[in-house]
């Protein structure tokens, strides 16, 4: 019964925040904090209670499950379940959600109740996506999170918010509908073969698809590549991220993009090994293109938020590369990259939001030399810029290292080209920091430093990223069983170069390597 609570608290909290906002804006904020805090506690309880079970190999597939019939006509059930992978992502959602409410405490002044309603409902949709084990339910949540996000961008965004909100909605909806067709095709292919018409994940994913497999995979790919985003389907992202209010940007970059990556791992990889293997080189190419192209464009931006947005494209390129490397270690790295990117980029968007709130501009050309004005903000920016460029000791390094290491064993060329991205990221991350805080001030603008509230937000994020950099093992342990199960299909059915050379490394269990390297 804990899983529906995760959703129910946010849904009810959203309605309550809306109502409370009519009394006083502060009430809406406190309701949102309370709801997200409750969710975070709940996730922590689940995590701690099941941590032992997670680290055992051969643990049961789902730690917790909750299922009630919903629309029997189509064999649809309201089926929620959590495994290590979902658990990590749900924890990230509650954590970043809570911080984004606190970070935008003073930024949002108009219609505060409705803002927090939308915020909590987006998060409910995202958690629903991570928990849904019925494909109809998954699609339901997938679509459900669009509308509140549209409102967040369209109502509280910056100067070009309407166009950005439209673009975001249209792109993701187009991908989503393609996925709907695939889900339906899957439903009927499975139904005709077995006589059982259902949307149950366990029944549909992995069912023999025959000649339809590439087409069904294509629908899922479209939806997930738009979200992740994969070049060239990324064009909605810079606009949406740049125009959204701070909390919106944090949720977009930190969580919404992750639903795409999650979908690829959860639905596409196990769908049909043959079709996926045929697509994998293209998937890796998309990932590498994203890494380099995103980095180049990030460097060229003059708008602070657009710059951070393009770094997202680059980092999510690593995620795509790691997923389509079809390698157990790379997949572990992907999970870690999802978490670390959520934290580091979320933090950079909070920096951007803080700068924008104070200076009323995001134009990097008007910035510079603010270190003396705002050393605390500068310190935070430096830390997360370093995390973003992959400094050892911070989480992103471990993640990108695992991805590159895993990819190298399968596709060395892609890994070599992708590692150029590490150089590029050094250039843009340092340039980001320099353009705000170094040099001389171009104008009379003054950047007021951050107060205790924002320091607390950055401290929480900094603790998380350092912890992930020094001791990522708990996250890896948590997701290992889930990811290993998905990676299995690719380990057994065809020998990869690593195995062909007679190196039976336990590739899906990078525990010892990671411990050694990260410490």
């Amino acid at each position, binding site marked *: 019964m804990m899983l529906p609570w995760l959703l129910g608290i946010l849904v009810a909290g959203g309605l309550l925040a809306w109502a409370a906002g009519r009394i006083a804006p502060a009430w809406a904020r406190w309701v949102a904090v309370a709801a997200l805090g409750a969710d975070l506690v709940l996730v922590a309880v689940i995590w701690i209670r099941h941590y032992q079970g997670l680290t055992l190999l051969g643990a049961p597939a789902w730690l917790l499950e909750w299922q009630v019939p919903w*629309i029997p006509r189509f064999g649809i059930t309201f089926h929620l379940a959590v495994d290590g992978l979902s658990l990590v992502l749900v924890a990230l959602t509650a954590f970043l959600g809570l911080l984004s409410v606190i970070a935008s405490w003073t930024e949002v002044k108009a219609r505060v109740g409705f803002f927090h309603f939308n915020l909590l409902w987006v998060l409910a949709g995202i958690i629903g996506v991570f928990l849904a084990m019925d494909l109809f339910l998954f699609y339901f949540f997938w679509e459900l999170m*669009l509308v509140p996000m549209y409102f967040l961008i369209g109502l509280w965004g910056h100067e070009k918010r309407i166009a950005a909100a439209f673009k975001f909605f*249209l792109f993701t909806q187009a991908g989503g509908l393609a996925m709907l067709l695939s889900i*339906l*095709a899957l439903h009927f292919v499975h139904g005709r073969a077995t006589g059982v018409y259902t949307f149950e994940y366990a029944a549909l994913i992995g069912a023999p698809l025959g000649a339809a497999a590439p087409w069904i995979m294509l629908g899922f790919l479209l939806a997930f590549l738009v979200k992740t985003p994969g070049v060239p389907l990324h064009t909605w992202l810079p606009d949406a991220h740049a125009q959204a209010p701070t909390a919106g940007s944090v949720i977009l970059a930190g969580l919404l993009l992750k639903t795409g990556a999650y979908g690829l791992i959860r639905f596409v990889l196990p769908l049909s090994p043959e079709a996926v293997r045929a697509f994998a080189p293209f998937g890796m190419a998309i990932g590498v293109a994203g890494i380099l192209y995103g980095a180049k464009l990030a460097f060229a931006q003059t708008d602070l938020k657009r710059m951070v947005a393009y770094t997202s494209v680059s980092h999510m390129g690593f995620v795509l590369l790691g997923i389509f490397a079809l390698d157990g270690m790379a997949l572990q790295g992907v999970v870690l990259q999802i978490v670390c990117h959520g934290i580091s980029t979320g933090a950079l968007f909070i920096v951007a939001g803080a700068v924008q709130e104070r200076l009323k501009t995001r134009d990097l050309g008007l910035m510079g030399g603010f270190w003396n004005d705002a050393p605390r903000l500068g310190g935070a920016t430096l830390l997360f810029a370093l995390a973003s460029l992959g400094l050892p000791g911070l989480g992103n390094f471990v993640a990108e290292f695992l991805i590159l290491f895993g990819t190298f064993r399968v596709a060395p060329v892609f890994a070599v080209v992708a590692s150029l991205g590490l150089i590029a990221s050094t250039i843009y991350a340092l340039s980001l920091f320099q353009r705000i805080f170094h040099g001389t001030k171009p104008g009379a603008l003054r950047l007021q430093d951050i107060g205790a509230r924002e320091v607390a937000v950055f401290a929480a994020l900094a603790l998380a990223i350092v912890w992930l950099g020094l001791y990522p093992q708990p996250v890896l342990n948590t997701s290992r069983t889930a990811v290993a199960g998905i990676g299995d299909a690719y380990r057994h059915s065809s020998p990869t170069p690593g195995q062909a050379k007679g190196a039976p490394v336990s590739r899906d269990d990078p525990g010892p390597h990671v411990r050694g390297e990260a410490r």
Partner: protein
Amino acid sequence: MSAADLLALAPLWIAAGAAIILLLLISVRRHFGLSAGFSILAAAAGLASVFVVGRLAPRTVTALFTVDGFALFFIGVFFAAALIIFLVASSYLPPSAERREEFFLAAFAALLGSSVLAASAHFVSFVLGLEILSVALYVLIAFPLERRESIEAGTKYLVLASASAAFLLFGGALIYGETGALDFATWAARTQELPLSKPLFILGVSLIIVGLGFKLAVVPFHIWTPDVYQGAPAPSAALVATISKGGMLAFLLRFFWTIGLPRFPSLVLVFSLIAGASMIAGNLLALRQNRVKRILAYSSISHLGYILVAFLAGGAAGLEAAAFYLVAYIITMTAAFGSVAMLSSADADADLLEDFRGAFWSRPGPAAVMTLAMLSLAGIPLTAGFLGKFYVASAGVGASLWALVVILVATSVIGLYYYLRVLTAMYARPREGTAEARPQGPRRGARASGAIALVLLVLLLLWLGVLPTGLIDAIRTTAAALAGAVLPPGSGGGLP
């Protein structure tokens, strides 16, 4: 005709009787509250009667009517829609308007026409129902005589509806010449014996399709729609969009189920082209509109295209999907026009997107309903439209109508754009300098009944979007009623 036969037609009696009583009531004492109250009660009685009559179904009443679960389901939906539209109209119709009591009179006639269509088993009852419906609609569209655009719309509708009725009658005559009968069961039986390519029969059915297509406003018979929607007062437009199209669709489903559409590949092709063209043209043409009622008009064209996809999917699954989508569509369209009505002032309807600017901040209630209606039309979760679209797509995929389903999906994305435009207008900050908020709505004292209607609609929209099982079960019984009556068991269903 036995007593049970008479009782089986109770909903029709109630619609006809209510119209006559209203006529007398108005001539004795013209009192708006009285007429409106009576109409609402009569519509509720009609709705209740459907459940009573349900125990008698299925029953063939003379050669003209088949009162079965299928007919009663649609009749019930029409009465429910009329009930809600009456509630809205009681708020909407301004005291200054002349002859506003006659709105209810004509609406009952339209209700009678649509109900007859849903139950008709014979070409004669079909034509009668159609004409009762059309004549009522001329009045409903044009009754605010002080508005030029209403008269224009009414006249356009009159001319085009008469022309299409002529096509339809000619088509019926051709089929009569071919089969020597006017009841659909005989038509079905004769076509089994005739060589399938019998040109006169195909020609006759094609001419009937012209008449049907006009009422359903599918491409290429859609030209009148935007003008009529724009000119008609909001409650009348709601009746055109829901009851009139619903009656026609119920007839379409029954008629082609009876004669067996899949046996005529040329007709299947015609309907496929109509469906595809409606989805594409409806959505593309809506993109450039600046008037909400015209957007709704084009949107309704595309939604009829979606329903035709379910219709073409055929089998029990297609029938179910079409019926479910129609119910979702009727609720949504009523909600959309209901909120337009509640945002309209006494002298003119809210229509330009600019009229809706900032509505969410000045009139949050109707604007929130409009938001839900737009999301439902766009097929976003939690709303009836989402499950409707899912149902239709599922039927289409189940029948492997890939081309149509891909068009459906692609045009849905296009459609999203103009629904978002309406939302964007409503949520925009109000223009600076305007002393009072633009959308004013009816007088404060008269808003209560409209507000009740909108609350009901929201509950229905969300109920169908979240817990559709009740309606699905009802529809499955309905579809089974039709499928079982005409085809041997097992030949209809493509689904479990």
